[in-house]
């Protein structure tokens, strides 16, 4: 058997693909979260970061293509494995108890598909920037470089309670998905044993909770008014009590 036959045609191979693609995506979402948490810094920070990412050019497209491939493989294998699992029991039991399977493990398909739907919306909103999905203003960095005002784009987006709610529910489901997914990865590639399975389970629950809280803090703090629009040219901007811009304008007139 060549390596492709092992990975895409055998039961354990397909699961290894699930585990490895899952791990890559976990790596991505950690990086993505850290990037997003820059929202709590002055707008300059996240705008410069976004400008840097866009400046990667072909590099950025290579990363995007790689992540898309990972996602496609993960979903494709999930569908394939699920269909095989359904076919393995043509007639179901009239009564069957659940003995120890966790609730998260039994709702992987549901949580996965809702997160996928959210991901598509999320990309249209913030990456493709479809007109009408949000506000896409521009600003300049301190050195005068014209950049997209990602800070304002995010704040305006999350000031919409429905967008924020959808976001919070989706990251909640993603954390739920990871709760089973993380431990599962270790089992699938053979790195889980009774010596540390209990630690592994606790660590992945802890990771899932922290991941959820950190993500939910972003729309949460926008809704709570902690993070405000800081671009004077965008509707909804409220002058702070001590505003250097206004003072300068007032001094001129």
């Amino acid at each position, binding site marked *: *058997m*060549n*390596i492709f036959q*092992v990975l895409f045609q*055998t*039961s*354990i*191979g*397909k*699961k*290894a693909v699930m585990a490895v693609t899952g791990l890559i995506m976990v790596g991505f979402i950690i990086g993505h979260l850290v990037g997003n948490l820059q929202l709590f810094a002055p707008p300059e920070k996240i705008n410069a970061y976004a400008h840097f990412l866009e400046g990667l050019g072909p590099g950025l497209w290579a990363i995007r293509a790689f992540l898309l491939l990972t996602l496609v493989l993960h979903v494709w294998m999930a569908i394939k*494995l699920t269909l*095989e*699992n359904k*076919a*393995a*029991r*043509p*007639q*179901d*039991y*009239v*009564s*069957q*108890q*659940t*003995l*120890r*399977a*966790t609730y998260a*493990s*039994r709702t*992987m398909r549901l949580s996965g598909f809702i997160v996928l739907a959210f991901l598509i919306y999320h990309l249209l909103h913030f990456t493709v920037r479809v007109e009408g999905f949000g506000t896409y203003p521009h600003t300049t960095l301190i050195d005068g470089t014209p950049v997209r005002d990602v800070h304002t784009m995010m704040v305006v987006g999350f000031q919409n309670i429905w967008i924020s709610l959808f976001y919070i529910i989706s990251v909640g489901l993603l954390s739920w998905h990871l709760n*089973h997914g993380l*431990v*599962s990865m*270790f*089992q*699938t*590639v*053979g*790195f*889980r*044993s*009774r010596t540390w*399975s209990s630690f592994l389970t606790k660590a992945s629950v802890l990771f899932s909770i922290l991941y959820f809280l950190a993500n939910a803090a972003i729309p949460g703090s926008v809704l709570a008014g902690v993070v405000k629009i800081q671009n004077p040219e965008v509707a909804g901007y409220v002058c702070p009590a001590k505003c250097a811009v206004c003072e300068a304008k007032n001094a001129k007139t």
Partner: protein
Amino acid sequence: MNVTIRVWRQKNTEAEGHFEDYEAKDLNPNMSFLEMLDVVNENLTLDGKDPIAFAHDCREGICGTCSCMINGKPHGPESGVATCQTYMRSFNDGDVIVVEPFRAKAFPIIKDLVCDRASFDKIMQSGGFISIRTGSAPDANAIPVGKEVADLAMDAAACIGCGACVAACKNSSAMLFVSAKAGQLNLLPQGQPEKDARVLNMVATMDEAGFGNCTNQYECSAACPKAISEEFIAKLNRDYLTASVKSVFKPKPTTMV
């Protein structure tokens, strides 16, 4: 005690099955579940009806022949025992007990509660053995085996091949069975020469038989009458992936034309 059993009746593999209720009266609570079925069958036979077909052999928990999904759990409500060692005292007087056969594409139903588990035999034939030179018995302890390794191999060897893991799994996966059988031999020095071929062949046969894929929920381990740990599945995954990578890169012997 008296109970009502709601039993799956199915004439043969092709026939449609259905449930039928039978009263089991004046039972001794210390009867095994199979003895209760014997009593019901005795009465059915006296009434000139077809007795319930169920699989059984040793009735002491080591042959792996008895099966049955009892109230939605393979081998009944207790843990770590097979149906033959499930006693009526585990139920309450007046209970309605639902009894179904193990269900899986790879375990076709032969009749009533009996299913054909020959796919397990096929898996064993494809790698669940070691090839040795027969002859006089080798010296005892000629091959040293560490105590911990021996204990772990013994845990895996406790598998009686009953199929409860497949029956309990939402995906009808046979991973616990295969991992126990392959793991037992792969842990021991005698199993090393054929280790890679063993896992590759056994998993291939398992996939071919139409079992589902493991989703790491460990229902198998919870239903196993020998309480075999799911960590053997992790070991099988590890051994299989290692063997696959090795088989891709390993040099093949020259073939003379």
